[in-house]
């Protein structure tokens, strides 16, 4: 079996994880909030902060947290949704936290990142409505944020010309607006 350079690097990485405990496996301290929620409790906001970043993590472009998505969600719950719908979102966040406590013995935000992701993946795969709704709102918040629209996607406020057939590689990413 011949290994390409890329495969070799990957298997090295895999080896490395067995030697040193990766960040994803470590329990975390409860993060401090850098913003004041309007609709959410402090606990819900802390949960959201972590959940949003797991839904859309920082990669070569900013993630949900850096894009201000938790604040976007909080603002939507306070200004956009009626009380009943907002309550469903809050209950969804509470459910994530209570599943963390019953299943893993701690607040969601204190669990190892891998455990957090596994828990959310399960809710997502099962199609839990409150989680799917939250994921939808986070996704909207991210791709309509300035970093989401201009860095993760391509944004051109005044295109000027319309060109109907352009190689995708010349543009590189999807357009932010239609």
């Amino acid at each position: 079996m011949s290994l390409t350079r890329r495969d070799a690097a990957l298997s090295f990485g895999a080896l490395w994880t067995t030697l040193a405990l990766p960040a994803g496996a470590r329990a975390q301290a409860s993060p401090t909030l850098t913003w004041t929620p309007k609709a959410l409790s402090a606990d819900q906001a802390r949960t959201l902060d972590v959940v949003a970043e797991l839904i859309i993590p920082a990669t070569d472009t900013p993630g949900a947290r850096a894009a201000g998505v938790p604040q976007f969600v909080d603002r939507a719950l306070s200004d956009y949704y009626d009380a009943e719908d907002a309550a469903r979102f809050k209950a969804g966040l509470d459910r994530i936290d209570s599943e963390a406590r019953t299943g893993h013995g701690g607040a969601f935000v204190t669990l190892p990142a891998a455990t957090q992701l596994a828990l959310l993946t399960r809710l997502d795969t099962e199609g839990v409505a409150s989680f799917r709704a939250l994921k939808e709102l986070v996704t909207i918040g991210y791709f309509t944020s300035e970093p989401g629209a201009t860095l993760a996607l391509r944004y051109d406020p005044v295109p000027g010309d319309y060109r109907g057939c352009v190689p995708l590689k010349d543009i590189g990413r999807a357009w932010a607006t239609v």
Partner: protein
Amino acid sequence: MANLNTRARREHTYDAIVVGSGITGGYAAKELTEKGLKTLVLERGRMVRHIEDYPTAQTPPWEAKYPRGKLPPKELKEHYKVQQRTGYAVTEYSKHFFVKDDENPYTEDKPFDWIRGHHVGGRSLTWGRQTYRHSDLDFEANAKQGIGVDWPIRYADLAPWYDKVERFIGVSGQAEGLPQLPDGVFQPPMEMNCVEVDFKKATEARFPGRKITIGRCAHLTAPTEEQLALGRGKCQNRNLCVRGCPFGAYFSSNAATLVAAERTGNLTIRPGSIVTSLILDPKKKRASGVRVLDETTGQETEFYADVIFLCASALSTAWIMLNSTSAQFPNGFGNGSDQLGRNVMDHHLGVGAQAEVPGYLDMYYSGRRPNGIYIPRFRNLGDPATARSDYIRGFGYQGGAARQNWERGLVGAGLGVDRKAALTQPGPWVVRIGGFGEILPYADNRVTLNHAVKDKYGLPTLTFNVTIRDNEKAMRKDMANAAAEMLEASGYKKIMAGDTGYSPGLGIHEMGTARMGRDPKTSVLNAHNQVHECKNVYVTDGAAMTSGACVNPSLTYMALTARACAHAVDANNRGEL
């Protein structure tokens, strides 16, 4: 006192009055002022100044107050119960261009979606900008089929006025030489994208007689000297038209006709002026002016002119005329035919098909073209090959192809790095086409004045009884099937065809409430858009339409308006009004 009254009357007297400042009112204002008439434009809504009153024209997505700019459910329920039925029109970016329904009541004996805006410019600010000519297939159909009444004009009567209007407003499009969809004065067409070209080739090869062309739209692609001089510029492909165009690139009253009218020095525009009725001079059998309710002060006043143009939109014009009763006109102004408020038409839509297009994954587009593709009518063109046995008249399709964007991630499972990476790339190509079908004029599709339900000014309101019938229903089945058949023949996948439902009004092309005709006994207007029974009142908005055709109607309203203005000025000079 007598002197004062004389002075007041003089100050309230113009050569011409135009009621409404939308797509037809603006055009009437331009034509009349350019011909030297001191013209008063009465607009019931507020002033909207070009560019400076487009507050959201440059708002980027991240400055939206609400997710994707959608209005909160509570606000929609409270103020936009009807306006939200389009599903697209009323957002935080555009709500200031639509009425609040709670302040503008009407009664739906049968469902009717009355989508409108009360402000200077009217719906010329928010229109779809698709711009097509009627043909003789349309002008002759009523007479040939014994439907409604015959149009008192033919294509040749209107053709030079279509030319004139297209030259002024600016229409981008491709000449195709189709008799059912006459070519016009076009600026360069917009481009189709790769998949639209693929769809065009496949369809035209497999379905002789069907044509796919780029939409003809009132956007400047190569502005003329005249357009540049008005301060208008080339379309920038932002596709934010509904917010008002800071480049003046699509045609609106605000960007074009009212600017031209203002430059003559003959224009007075008076927002906040609700015209409640026409004033009849019974001795002379002519209208001496209009009664106006001041929207802010609640004060009633009168304005006088030799020539009056009603351009308030089909339903509001009908309302004004129905509300103008007198000993001579007990059932409404010039309504000896009893046709006023009847024959309400629209274009029925909400039926078509979509499909996923395999391939072309290495291709994309740049710019947001505010336009789509158009499939001109290919049914019932007068030859056996296109004849249908299940319905008369026809439909056209509007649509387009695009790659899915990040919103495809709003459904389905997936989280984290891989999903994010996928959503930052365009998704598969999807092509969609939706039909716009002709609705026949039915005498009992009508609006009537309702004195039991008053608006906030204490004015009577309208009650709607408008439905589509068997002909339209049969056409809708074909609209879905023929769409699916073209997508299938093009080799596309995951085809979904169907009817998402339609209530009259949703096409936002209200027509027919004061139809043109040859006989005063069966029509309200004559061949020059004059009220048969009162020659100095012209009606040139959608109310005038004798049949609806299947194409977007605004261009025809403007052509009728320009033609009627020329007639009015000549007739007035000859002392005939």
